[in-house]
């Protein structure tokens, strides 16, 4: 007994244990999966449909048993509980995480949570944890306490000690969650590390060496890429071991490979907001790009600059046409002639029509189709990309293939040099590398087939602890955006005067600014959140439930933070969530509505939509748009419902296709170009 307890205290202190070494992960070959096609893909989809399910009654019984055991532990004295912890840990290490020992471990973890956070986990949370322990994605409604739930499965992996990454959507949440759960883990003898942006290399390495690591997805994936850059092209166990044995590295130039990397392999991960991380973010792969001062790069950049400058000289309608719906630009014959006429001034690379038209069209597309404040903002003479799906600023990122230069030229900024990709991995392929992957989110049901297809995650829907009594008002349909915003402002004003708390969700930074302006014109004080300063915003959002508070936020702002309503608000009927647009996927709408009416609180969700919304403009059927515009009453409501339903479905499909393309090209290139796997 004493031996075991001393080993608890030794954990994480100083020297790397065997488990913490990189080669542990290399010892297990990484199995490449290639995207399926044809009948296989259909079978996979059917499997996903068949596998997603509500949490089984068996789980509830099990969870109740665990809750009962935890209650028994609550009578123990502190020292007696310590002994139980040690015993439980050793049983997990010896027996593994099957049945009995898992239940006991969960009971112990529940009790630790009660002692150090002061929360008694309810049965539904334990059910979610059970689902995650089986490698599923638990769907738990907003406000059900996912952060705490994750402690249970994380604790078990923490005891095993091969690395457990709890992945959240941003650094603030990682830090907050680690701070909340830290005392619990410490009590259980588990060390906790947190990754934050800008942390130096040694600290990162230390954070990864901890039993449990809290981090944002970006941190983990970019660390992975950076590690790849300093690793040999084909990381192999034999060469790594040789490397560790010898003094000087034979495989990497800058020193010993094992010392240069920060991660120690990808063992297990729990992904918070799984749909957001694994699905939404997975459209674009993670890329490390560098400004390489070599000749080829300079040439490339030169061509992009030429294209960007040329694009400014061409006239819309005369030289080219823009198809807003299809998002394409086409040169007219006049434009072609003009380009051919310019050939004399241009380098020989531009001589023929094929390449020159392609480069020019791309530059014009970037000018025409990328909208300021929607896709990017200009700050201090610099172009900063805005993440379309989250509204977050992606400082330091650059669009590729000349798009960035073309937009810079449009904004009359200094053209930056193109950065060349040096390492890249798609989200799908990165998360496939985890040996044990599980997830939790409020909304996974709609994307269950993709979660299964790429990550082999089954969706298990966990019931809410208390029934949801949030009311959902019928959608209000407007013809123009101005009418819609006016109605939202009016409605907000009256709600504000009633003393209710209002949260307005917007799609873009621009519309939240606009709405904020309209509200302050009406004398309604409001706070605007644009997902730029996470920590502050989380605090603001947390206060959005106060009586009379009006908060305008983009979809992602303050995500992961509970809005706790005060008594006045509760008496008046809870938080009112007003969605000013339907999102491209109905899942995201549900996330927004979920902010009201958490844990059985009252709440109201309203949706204001207009025929000028981007979703309808891009994906709506014209026929239905015309029908909605020209009718009134029931017909209009019905037409609008079909219109938005179809548009959401269509845009969802499109996004899914994009993701699948991204995964496919990645997998294929990986297979074909195996001697270049960075």
């Amino acid at each position, binding site marked *: 007994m004493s031996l075991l307890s001393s080993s608890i205290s030794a954990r994480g202190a100083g020297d790397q244990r065997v488990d913490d070494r990189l080669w542990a992960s290399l010892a297990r070959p990484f199995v490449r999966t290639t995207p399926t096609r044809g009948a296989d893909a259909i079978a996979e989809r059917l499997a996903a449909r068949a596998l997603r399910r509500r949490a089984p009654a068996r789980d509830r019984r099990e969870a109740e048993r665990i809750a009962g055991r935890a209650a028994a532990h609550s009578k123990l004295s502190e020292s007696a509980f310590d002994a139980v912890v040690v015993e439980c840990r050793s049983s997990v290490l010896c027996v593994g995480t099957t049945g009995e020992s898992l239940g006991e471990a969960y009971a112990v973890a529940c009790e630790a949570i009660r002692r150090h956070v002061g929360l008694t986990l309810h049965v539904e949370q334990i059910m979610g944890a059970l689902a995650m322990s089986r490698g599923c994605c638990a769907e738990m409604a907003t406000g059900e306490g996912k952060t705490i739930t994750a402690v249970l499965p994380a604790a078990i992996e923490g005891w095993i000690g091969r690395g457990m990454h709890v992945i959240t959507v941003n650094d603030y949440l990682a830090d907050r969650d680690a701070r909340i759960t830290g005392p619990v883990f410490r009590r259980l003898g588990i060390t906790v590390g947190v990754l934050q942006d800008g942390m130096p290399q040694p600290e990162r390495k230390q954070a990864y060496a901890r039993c449990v690591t809290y981090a944002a997805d970006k941190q983990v994936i970019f660390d992975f890429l950076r590690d790849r850059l300093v690793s040999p092209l084909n990381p192999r166990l034999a060469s790594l071991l040789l490397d560790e044995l010898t003094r000087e590295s034979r495989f990497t130039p800058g020193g010993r490979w094992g010392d240069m990397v920060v991660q120690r392999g990808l063992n297990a991960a729990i992904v918070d907001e799984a749909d957001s991380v694994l699905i939404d973010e997975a459209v674009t792969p993670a890329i490390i790009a560098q400004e390489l001062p070599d000749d080829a790069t300079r040439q490339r950049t030169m061509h992009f600059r030429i294209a960007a400058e040329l694009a400014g000289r061409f006239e819309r309608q005369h030289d080219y046409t823009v198809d807003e719906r299809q998002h394409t630009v086409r040169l007219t014959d006049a434009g072609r002639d003009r380009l051919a006429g310019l050939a004399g001034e241009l380098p020989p690379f531009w001589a023929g029509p094929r390449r020159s038209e392609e480069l020019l069209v791309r530059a014009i597309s970037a000018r025409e189709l990328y909208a300021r404040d929607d896709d990017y903002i200009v700050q201090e003479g610099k172009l900063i990309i805005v993440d379309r799906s989250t509204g977050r600023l992606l400082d330091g990122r650059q669009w590729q293939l000349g798009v960035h230069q073309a937009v810079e030229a449009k904004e009359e900024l200094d053209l930056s040099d193109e950065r060349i990709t040096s390492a*890249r991995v798609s989200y799908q392929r990165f998360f496939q590398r985890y040996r044990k992957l599980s997830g939790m989110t409020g909304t996974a049901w709609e994307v269950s087939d993709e979660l299964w297809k790429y990550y082999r995650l089954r969706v298990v829907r966990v019931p809410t602890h208390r029934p949801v009594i949030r009311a959902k008002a019928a959608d209000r349909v407007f013809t123009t955006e101005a009418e819609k915003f006016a109605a939202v402002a009016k409605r907000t004003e009256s709600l504000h005067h009633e003393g209710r708390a209002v949260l307005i969700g917007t799609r873009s930074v621009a519309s939240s600014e606009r709405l904020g302006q309209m509200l302050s014109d009406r004398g309604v004080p409001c706070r605007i959140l644009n997902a730029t300063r996470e920590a502050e915003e989380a605090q603001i959002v947390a206060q959005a439930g106060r009586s009379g508070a009006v908060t305008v936020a983009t979809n992602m702002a303050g995500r992961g933070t509970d809005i706790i309503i005060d008594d006045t608000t509760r008496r008046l009927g809870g938080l009112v969530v007003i969605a000013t647009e339907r999102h491209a996927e109905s899942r995201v709408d549900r996330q927004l509505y979920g902010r009201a009416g958490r844990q059985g609180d009252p709440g109201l969700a309203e949706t204001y939509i207009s025929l000028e919304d981007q979703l309808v403009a891009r994906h709506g059927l014209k026929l239905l748009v015309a029908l909605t515009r020209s009718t009134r009453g029931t017909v209009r409501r019905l037409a609008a419902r079909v219109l938005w339903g179809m548009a959401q479905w269509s845009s969802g499909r499109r996004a899914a296709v994009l993701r699948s393309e991204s995964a496919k090209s990645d997998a294929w290139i990986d297979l074909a170009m195996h001697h270049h796997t960075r």
Partner: protein
Amino acid sequence: MPWEEVGATFSDIWYRVAESRPRLTPHANIIRQRYGPTIAYIVEDPASGQYYRLSESAYFFVGLLDGRRTVDDAWNACNAQLGDEAPTQRECVQLLSQLQLFGLLLGDNELAADMVLERKLKARETRVKRRTGMWVFWNIPLYNPEPFLDRHRRVIELIFSRWGALVWLVTMSVAAYLLIRSAGRFGDEFAGLLALDPRGMAAMGAVFLVLRAIHEMGHAAACKAMGGRSTEIGVIMIAGVLPLPYCDATTAWRFARIRPRVLVSAAGVIVESLIAAIAGIYWALADPAVSPTLVGIAYQVMIISGVSTLLFNLNPLLRYDGYYILSDLVGSPNLSQRSRDLLRFLIERYMFGLKSSQPPRVRDRTEATVLTVFGLLSTPYRIFIGLSIVLLIMDRYAAFGLLLGGMMAAMWLVWPVLKIIGYLASSPKLLGRRGRACLVTMTIVGIPLVALGLVPVSSAEYAPAIVEAKHAAPLRAGESGFVRRIEARAGQHVAKGDPVVTLRSPELEAEAARLGAQLDRAQRQVDEAMSGAALDFEVALAARQQLRLQYDRVAQRLDALVLRAPISGVVAPSDGTAVDFDNIVGRYLPHGALIGFVSSPELVVRALVPDRSYAHILAGAESSPNVTVRVRGHAGQSVPGTITSRAPMGTRDLQNPAYARLTSGSIAVEPSQSGRLVAMETHWLVKIEADDSTDNPVSSAQPGVRARVRFGLAREPLAAQLFRRGTQYLDARLHR
């Protein structure tokens, strides 16, 4: 991002290949090949027998990769040299990874062993998948013809030389001349080929297999003669049961010129046609009476090779020899895939108005025309052939045919339809044009569907029929006797009671004479007895009475020697082939012998309605089907009629051979039911009378003329009719 789809000059994954220095494996062969006006390069991996085709610019790029230059340098050099024709970065990446997958590229990095293994496993997996996925066409390699061909190389080269061509030409012309000369006999024997018993079928199957084997050997031999190799001859098991020999002559791919490639593709047909021609000459010259079996086989050889050549092998619409010949001659490799691409492009661009749809690379107008025509024809033709095969098989093996048909429907109907729906619903290409695309598709598909499914059109069932007399009274000898005289000739009109034939019976005449004499004597005795005792008188009277009765009876029998028409009508001899009674004068006829009929002038049509449609017509009968009759020889005129009677039960016995298919009727009969004609299906006899008795083809027809009865039914949409016919057909096949 939309431009990532079109963007090609610069690729965002270029970094992965830019600095590497790969080169082709030294064992790869490169062959320059002419395809019409374009030049292509074939990279051949002799180890795996795989080929990869490079365009001229791609070849330039690959040629620059020597293991010392980086990919990026090679690309820049391409740009400097080829200008706008240079491959884009994306094309280069694609090319390199393809070559890599084919194992044709050596990287500058150490080639990891597990990667090689992974690739090998992958290749095996795809092979297994192809095998299992293609169980409909399951290849079983059997024989390596290479040693044999090497041994007989001289002969083979001679066969495919100018002299061989001359011999072929001469043989073909002789055969053609002989066949044209005996074209009539050729046609006669064809009918016999269709009514085969199982043994005949097996023999035909064997002939077919031998012919195919020779055909495949022809390919292999031609390949050898042209300098290639062919190492595999085997059998494709179609649907697991039907064996079909095949030959792997893929080395013909590497021939630089078109002529040898075409020759290898055509060799099978050349050799097969030579065999067929020899068989034809034998068939035309040999005496079928002397060696019927051999002549029969020769005939089968001719027919089988002719049909398989025209319908399958030389037909470019199926992917057999003709397809490859066409694709070589036109100079467009991968014809079928490209024609599909072109059609899709045409539809997307011009019907869906999708301006962003990219056309596949097409050399010139001619090629575009060939591709379009090919694309438009090949699918319907394939479906037609498939359907015919299924129907042919169903004739004999109903369940198996049904299974095959189901599979074909799934492959050619259900799957494409699902794919089209998927494409319309979710193809990102259609963004913004989805509405129009759906509308156009719905219109194209919908109009025929509406026309088929909703618009009622006249519906009818047909049945074979024969025109017969309404009443036919038999003309029987009332008494035994010799024919004395013909009173009314066959075809002559007689009134009821008119004598037709008179007989002579010397026996009866003698009997009558004897009885007459006796009667006279008896009369005399009566006269004498009148004066004598009363008792004697009584006795004499009784005796005379007795004799008179006897005499009367004989007189009646004598009278019966005159055969009289039982009804008014036309006299017809009993033997259908006899023109009149002349040949029976003087012949003895036993009592009751049938010598002919007197048939009434009113005619009736006897139709045999097949079982499968009988119920339907019967149901229609309540709503009085609109019956019309067409008599053979009066094609333009249809005579309205009415059903007068129906047989109480169906039969398979064909009383009149004129119905049977063998005698160019329309009812299929069971083969080998010696003597009897038994229909494959039960039929119901229905009698129909023409409504208007005067002056129409029916009333003026000769009895025994063939006719066709049309039972016009209630108007019904075409789809319902087709469905009914289909179910009737299946019903007839499955519950025989």
